C-alpha cells in the first residue's frame, strides 16, 4: 500500500503541473482528458507498442519499400529505386499464374471441407453426452502441433513406399498399386489439402459451437411446435441466427489459409518441381534466394488481393443479410 501511495504523490511532481492531476482526483469517474491520465495510459501501452513497432511494423514497412527497389542480397551495390519493375517481372512470370491457381485450389479445397465437417461436428456436439468434454479436448489437440510438424507427420503417412495411407487403401481394396502421393503434382496437391483439412476442422467446430450455444432454446421450441422438420430448422433458424459468426469465421480462415505455408513447407517444400507452391511458400523461396525486392513485391500483391477479396466478401455477405430480414 505504501508503494502505491507514494507513486500517487510522485506522479504529478514528475509532471511538474499539479492542477490537472487534482482535477482528475475530484472527477475520477469522468474520462476527461488530463495529462496525468494520458501519461498513465501511455506508460501502460508503451512496452507493447515499442516492441510491435520495432520488430513488426518497422520491418514490414521497410520491406514494403523494397518492393520498389532493386534489392538482391547477392549484389547490394545497386539498390536504386526501380518503380514497378519488380511487379512487372512478377506479372510477366508464368510461374506466378500457376502459383496463383494452386493457391486458389489450396484455399477452396481446404475451406469447404473444413467448414462442412466442422459445422456437422458442432451441430452434433450441442447435444450432451457422457464424454463430451473429453471428446472436445481430444479433437482439439491437433492445435497444439505446429503446421510444419503436421506437414512432416503427413509426409511420412503419405510416403509412397512405407506410408500408412497407401497400406490402408490397398487393404481396403481401393488401390492395386501404391500411389506416389508426393511425387506426382496432382496427388501432392490432394495430400497437402487433406493435411490442412485435418488441421483446420477444429477451428470451425470451436467457433460454430460457441455461436450455436448463443441461440435461445425458445426458437427451436417454436419451430418444432410449428412442425418444422430438421432441414427447415437448420436452414431457417440455425444458419440465419449465426450468420455473422459463420461469415466472419470463413473470412478469417480464408485470409489465414492463404498465408499459411507451414504445412506445405514441411510436407513438400513446394515440390515436386514447384507444383505445390502457394503464393506464400513461393515468396519464402524467393526470399531464400536473396531477391528481397521481388519477394516484397509478391507480398504486396498478396496484401492487395486479400484486401480486395475482404471488401467484396464483406459487401456480399452484408447484402444477403439485408435481403433476408
Amino acid at each position, binding site marked *: 500500500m505504501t508503494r502505491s501511495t507514494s507513486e500517487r504523490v510522485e506522479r504529478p511532481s514528475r509532471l511538474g503541473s499539479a492542477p490537472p492531476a487534482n482535477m482528475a482526483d475530484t472527477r475520477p469517474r469522468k474520462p476527461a482528458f488530463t495529462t496525468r491520465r494520458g501519461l*498513465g495510459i501511455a506508460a501502460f501501452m508503451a512496452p507493447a507498442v515499442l516492441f*510491435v513497432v520495432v*520488430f513488426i511494423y518497422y520491418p514490414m514497412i521497410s520491406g514494403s519499400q523494397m518492393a520498389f527497389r532493386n534489392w538482391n542480397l547477392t549484389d547490394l551495390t545497386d539498390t536504386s529505386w526501380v518503380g514497378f519493375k519488380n511487379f512487372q517481372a512478377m506479372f510477366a512470370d508464368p510461374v506466378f499464374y500457376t502459383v496463383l491457381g494452386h493457391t486458389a485450389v489450396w484455399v477452396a479445397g481446404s475451406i469447404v471441407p473444413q467448414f462442412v465437417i466442422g459445422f456437422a461436428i458442432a451441430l452434433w456436439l450441442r447435444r450432451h453426452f457422457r464424454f463430451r468434454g473429453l471428446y472436445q479436448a481430444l479433437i482439439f*489437440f491437433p492445435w497444439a502441433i505446429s503446421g510444419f510438424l503436421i506437414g512432416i507427420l503427413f509426409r511420412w503417412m503419405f510416403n509412397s513406399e512405407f506410408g500408412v495411407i497407401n497400406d490402408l487403401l490397398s487393404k481396403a481394396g481401393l488401390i492395386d498399386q501404391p500411389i506416389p502421393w508426393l511425387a506426382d503434382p496432382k496427388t501432392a496437391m490432394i495430400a497437402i489439402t487433406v493435411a490442412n483439412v485435418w488441421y483446420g476442422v477444429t477451428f470451425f467446430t470451436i467457433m460454430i459451437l460457441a455461436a450455436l450455444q448463443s441461440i435461445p432454446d425458445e426458437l427451436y421450441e417454436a419451430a418444432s411446435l410449428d412442425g418444422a422438420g430438421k432441414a427447415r430448422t437448420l436452414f431457417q433458424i440455425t444458419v440465419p441466427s449465426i450468420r455473422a459468426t459463420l461469415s466472419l469465421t470463413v473470412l478469417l480462415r480464408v485470409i489465414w489459409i492463404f498465408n499459411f505455408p507451414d504445412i506445405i513447407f514441411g510436407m513438400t517444400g513446394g515440390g515436386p518441381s514447384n507444383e505445390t507452391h502457394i503464393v506464400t511458400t513461393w515468396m519464402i523461396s524467393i526470399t531464400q534466394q536473396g531477391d528481397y525486392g521481388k519477394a516484397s513485391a509478391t507480398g504486396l500483391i498478396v496484401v492487395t488481393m486479400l484486401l480486395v477479396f475482404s471488401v467484396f466478401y464483406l459487401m456480399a455477405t452484408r447484402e444477403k443479410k439485408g435481403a433476408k430480414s
Partner: protein
Amino acid sequence: MINKESIAGRIVRIAFLAMWLVITVFPLYWITITSLKIPGAIFKFPIAYWPDEFSLQNYAGLFSKAQFGVYLGNSLIVATVAGTVATAISILSAYVLARFEFRSKTALLMAALVTQMIPSFIALGPLYMMMTQLGLVDNRFGLILVYIAVCIPFCTVMLRGFFENVPDALEEAAMVDGCSRFGALFRVLLPVMRPGIVAAFIFNFVNCWNELFLSVTLMNSDTNKTIPTALNGFISSFNIDWGSMSAAAVLTIVPTMALFAFASRYIVQGLTSGAVKG
C-alpha cells in the same frame, strides 16, 4: 433442449463423431508407433500397426548422434522467457484497452489486428538485416525479443477479453477501500484472472515453441537452433531418417499437448469471445 432424435439419427451422429475422432488421433498414434519401432523395422513389410518389439533406440540416437538436448534447451529457454515477458507486457496493454476510453484506442486495436492479417514473410528480409545491424543475429536474446513482439498483439486481444469479463465493481470496491488503481490491478484483478493469464502464457509458449520461419531466418549455428529449425535441417538433407524424425516429432508434440490439455478451456474461451462478439 433440442427435439428428440431418432435411432437412425443417433447412430449416424455417433458413427460420424467416432470416425472423426479416429481420424484426428490416428496421425499422432502413427508417429508414436513409428518412433518406438526398432530403426530397421520401419522399412519392413508388411507394415506393422502394433510392432512385435518396442525400442527406444530412435530416442537415444537423437541425443547421442544429434544435439537434440541442446535444441530442446534452446526452445525451452526462448519459449519460456518470451512467453513470460510477452504475457506481462500484454497484461498492461490489455488492462488499459479494457478499462479506459481514449482517442487512439480503436487505432491501436486495428494495429494489433493488422499484424495478424499481413503475411509476416514480407518482414523477414528487413528483419534479418536489422538484426544483423544490431548484432542480434544467431543470438537467443535476439530471437526472444522478436518472439515477444510477435506474441503481444494476439495476447493483448485475448487478455482484454478476460479483463472485460471481470466486473468493474471489483476494482472500484478495492479503490474505495484505499487501494490505488495500480494496487487494485495487482492485488485484486490479477488474482481473479489467474486462469486466463496462465492460458495466455501457455498460448504464447506454444506459439514460440512451434515457430519456424523466424528462427530459421535468424539462427544459423547448430548450438543456437530451436527444435523446429533443427527439424527443418533434418528434412532438408537428402534422405530423411524417419526413425529419429518421428522420435523428434513426438518429443516436440508431447509438451505442447500437455500444456494445451491443461488450458484448452480458457484458450477456447479466449479465441471465441472476440469473434462471437465482433
